[in-house]
């Protein structure tokens, strides 16, 4: 059987499109001067690394707290998303279409408008300038994604396994936990990863609702991107992408352990 070379080629092109820019970031992070049309930087400098590892920047603590914050937001957004998806997939109730539409609302409203409106509400609730407030706004921003991903997945899974377990005498909780939930695992993973990525890259919402009291990697990185400091921007971007990928890998590993590598379909 001759193997079709097309898929391999597609993978190679896609890989190059992703890896080449990241490789460029790596070069820029240590580049001093790189004038056009040189193919390689004229000079190198460790300025970026010196700044990144300077003790006053507390980069390690910043990284840990950013990841922790985004994991919390992602877990909550996935939980709420899964429950909403189940309601939308299996139940009919008055105002169902409104809920479906409402779940998408945060991405229909421009981000800055959403943030400024929420700021007013959060001020009254005492949530502004707090970590809890930032978690809530990240959950709100991530919900449209988790709801739409999980609605499709929940519908595709159906209730067959759960009903089968119920027929065999399992309680509803047990039927869900051992029947549907493992089958949903890959969907939960994609929704959770999506929510993590959304939360991890929030800038303006974190800035306004955290009021500068909640520091994240994005808050430190974006000003350098805006200021056009290519060395520091590249270095922070690498750290950002690398840490996000590491989190995805760990999540994927955990899901794999939990489901024992089995596949439902």
């Amino acid at each position, binding site marked *: 059987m001759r193997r079709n070379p097309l898929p391999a080629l597609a993978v190679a092109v896609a890989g190059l499109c992703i890896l080449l820019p990241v490789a460029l970031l790596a070069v820029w992070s240590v580049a001093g*001067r790189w004038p056009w049309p040189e193919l390689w930087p004229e000079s190198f400098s460790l300025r970026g690394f010196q700044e990144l590892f300077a003790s*006053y920047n507390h980069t390690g603590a910043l990284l840990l707290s950013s990841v922790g914050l985004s994991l919390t937001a992602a877990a909550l957004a996935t939980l709420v998303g899964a429950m909403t998806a189940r309601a939308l997939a299996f139940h009919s109730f008055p105002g169902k279409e409104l809920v479906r539409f409402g779940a998408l609302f945060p991405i229909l409203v421009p981000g800055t408008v959403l943030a*400024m409106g929420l700021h*007013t509400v959060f*001020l009254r609730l005492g949530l502004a300038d707090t970590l809890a407030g930032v978690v809530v706004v990240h959950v709100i921003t991530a919900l449209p994604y988790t709801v739409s991903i999980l609605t499709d997945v929940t519908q595709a899974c159906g209730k067959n396994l759960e009903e089968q377990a119920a027929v065999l005498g399992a309680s509803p909780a047990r039927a869900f936990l051992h029947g549907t939930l493992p089958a949903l695992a890959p969907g939960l993973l994609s929704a959770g990863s999506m929510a993590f990525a959304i939360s991890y890259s929030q800038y303006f919402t974190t800035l*306004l609702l955290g009021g500068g009291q909640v520091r994240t990697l994005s808050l430190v990185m974006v000003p350098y991107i805006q200021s*056009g400091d290519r060395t520091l921007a590249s270095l922070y971007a690498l750290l950002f992408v690398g840490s996000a990928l590491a989190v995805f890998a760990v999540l994927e590993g955990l899901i794999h352990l939990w489901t024992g590598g089995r596949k439902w379909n």
Partner: protein
Amino acid sequence: MSIRFPRVLTAAALSAALLAGCGSAAADPTPEQTLPTDFDSLVELARGTTVTFYGWGGDDARNQFLQTTVADTLKEKYDITLEVVGMDIDAILAKLSGEKGAGQTTGTIDMIWINGENFYSCKENGLLYGPFTQDLPNFNAYVDQEDTETLTDFCYPIEGYEAPYAKAQLVLIRDSAATPEAPTSTEELLEFVQKYPGKVTYPAPPDFTGSAFVRNVVYDICGWEQFQDMEADKETLRAAVAPAMEYLRELNPYLWNGGETFPASSTQLTNLFADGEVLLDISYSPYSPAVNIEKGIYPDTAQAFLWDNGTIGNTNYIAIAYNAPNKAGAMVVINELLSPELQAAQYEAQKVLPVLDEEKLSAEEQALFDAVDIGEGTLPQDALLERRLPEMPAALVPLLEEIWTEEVVGQ
């Protein structure tokens, strides 16, 4: 090192505040915290507290200076912890106006890095605490009280609501290895762009530096005096700046990309210059060549120059938020930033013009400044100050930017 002042959100933020204000803030005046006016009591109040300093976070030299030298000095002298928070001025405005609208009396922002039209809108909307500068010993001892830039910010009266922090002045930068000539007037600039077509551009207003460059062209062609007391009327301004707009249209075909597009920010222009794509950079930080040569971004042969008729200078300031949780601490920190020791250290670390009056410094204090090696590619301080022109009134600035958009870009 110039502060970037995007105006994207300011209008939205302020209208949001006004809308919210209709509901509650109007009926809920902020109770003024009564602070002692003698400095020693302020220091006692501030001891052991934390002070937050909000401002643009995209300058590593500034971040480093504040978080090391300044933070250490404050800790040692007053047991004050300085927390530097990177936040764009538009986000600060959005935050403060939201808080004002919701009637909040204790926020999180103590000190704000500010100037120009942002100061104007903050003060007009009651987002600042003050007046406070009259109670700062260093302000009284070392700052020239009669100087225009102490009294007004973009021609708008300061009235003690902000203290000077550093001085900026527009300079042009060329690579002396790439071009033998330095165009020191609008006339010479026209010859220059005709000689090097496609190799010159300027950031599109409302970028802070691009906007200042356009104002400088206006000053060079129309003179600067007539704008100082001009009323904020667009048609009056349009008529006054017509020859300058005509000149800018004449430049267009010779500019980078045929003058059809302009870099969106001064930092993009700096990158174009560093890459050798354009021959001139424009900066509001007169010592930026020294900083960028040291960082290895500019070639060693980069050199700043001025226009014969002068370039626009302004001061940036520190204000205190109306709902600052630690006003006493903020005043102690601002006072310390105005000490000869920290101004000289800042001159050295960030390469920004100091705000102290040389005539008020003792010989030892003056020596601190003289000892600073300002680095390659720059002009001496007295050469800069000799050719320093005052800013236009804050209210004219956005009008001129609109006129530029209507009459120059794509024409």
